[in-house]
């Protein structure tokens, strides 16, 4: 990291250790389902990805003992978690808070990259396309999770708000101007 590092919050060590024993296959399936639900609500994101819908993105939260393979697949995304080194066309690595902050518009990707808070390797064009497609989609993972929670939506909202306040991680969409 450089002098202009953003000081991204790191995932707490104890819960991260607990993830080492987590069964990855059901979580991968659940995340894939979650991603498909988001995809159905944001088809423009996949149009914007264009030819990079076929790319394989390795997302590597460096403060977690696992990484993720994301395949957009023209709006039928698939997510696969692994504790082993994953191979793909491009790799984006950084603290989980940085990756989630990019999704929610809390951080600028170029700034995180130039400050060395984020590492990008492999197909740079694919990474750019993914970054631009996600940035334009104005995703809010918190709202999506609430929408899937049925009668527990309010409890989910409170839980996410509490986690956001305690960790400093952007778990919901960052509105660029609070007055709007």
């Amino acid at each position, binding site marked *: 990291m450089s002098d202009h590092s953003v000081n991204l919050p790191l995932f707490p060590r104890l819960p991260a250790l607990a993830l080492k024993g987590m069964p990855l296959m059901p979580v991968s399936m659940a995340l894939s389902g979650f991603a498909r639900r988001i995809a159905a609500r944001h088809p423009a994101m996949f149009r914007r990805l264009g030819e990079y819908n076929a790319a394989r993105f390795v997302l590597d939260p460096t403060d977690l003992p696992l990484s993720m393979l994301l395949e957009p697949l023209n709006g039928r995304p698939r997510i696969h978690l692994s504790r082993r080194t994953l191979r793909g066309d491009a790799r984006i690595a950084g603290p989980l808070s940085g990756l989630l902050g990019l999704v929610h518009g809390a951080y*600028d990707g170029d700034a995180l990259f130039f400050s060395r808070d984020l590492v990008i390797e492999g197909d740079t064009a694919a990474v750019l396309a993914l970054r631009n497609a996600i940035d334009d989609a104005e995703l809010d993972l918190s709202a999506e999770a609430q929408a899937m929670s049925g009668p527990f939506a309010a409890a989910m909202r409170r839980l996410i708000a509490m986690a956001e306040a305690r960790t400093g991680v952007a778990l919901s969409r960052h509105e660029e101007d609070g007055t709007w």
Partner: protein
Amino acid sequence: MVMEIVCPAGTPASLRAAVKAGAHTVYCGFADETNARNFPGLNFERDEMREGVAFAHDHGSKVLVAINTFPRAGGEEMWHRAIADAESAGADAVILADLGLLAHAAQHHPNLRRHLSVQAAAANADVINFYADAFGVRRVVLPRVLSVPEIAAINAETEVETEVFVFGGLCVMAEGRCSLSSYATGKSPNMNGVCSPASHVDYHEDHGDLSAKLGGYTIHKVGAGQPAPYPTLCKGCFQAGEATGHLFEDPVSLNAEALIPQLAKAGVTALKIEGRQRSRSYVAQVVRNFRAAVDAQAAGLPMPEGMLASLTEGQATTAGAYKKTWR
């Protein structure tokens, strides 16, 4: 009078972010080779442009459409269609660089306001007045090679509005005439809209050292703790004789925020922020900052303290040619 801030938008979300942050004007381009930021996942489809213009107009902002690459022989139709589509989308002006395209726009779209792109490299009053007389150009975006006194001299001799860059990536070459990227990648910023296309950029980290390659050539390598190297040849690090360093230019970004009062005094109409390739987070932060600055300038207040260093591409800033202190 408040100076106009002209803000970048690479996506519809960024356009909305710019408008919400207080942009007087937003500039953007279509998702093809007609604009000089033809990057993967960026820019506007036709329907997105129509919706973006409507959103901006509903909130009192203007939209300029950059069609500022140079048409390929035999492929002019794509550029002509872009101008027609910009007009039908309700754009407030088009930003053009090519003489033939300016002539086409003046002849076929006389009511569509025409701005001269920085890509045209118009750097003196004579050539600017020629563009105004011949093609009805109403505003010129000045190249980033002029000092403040030179800008004042231009404004003293022309009725054409001037717009100058105040923040973002910096090209010290006379814009529109740089071919460095083409030598390494075969792709031209002026023809294909891509300087150092991402498809030819490769970063590799090894034990904390980060190297940047363009077209297979390593152009810079930095150690742990140093800002990531910039992927363009002009900001690469080279060895010549016994000297090693940034031989073309330092990897710094422009920040002329502190010069806003002098630029106003020099007769500048509009301040341009670079960065259509950046995120909506960048756009919102930079636009908010500059809107506060021009409002303060108009009210005769001191310039607010800048907060933008962390957003610059090289993590370091310069006042560029506005204050010529080259080594």
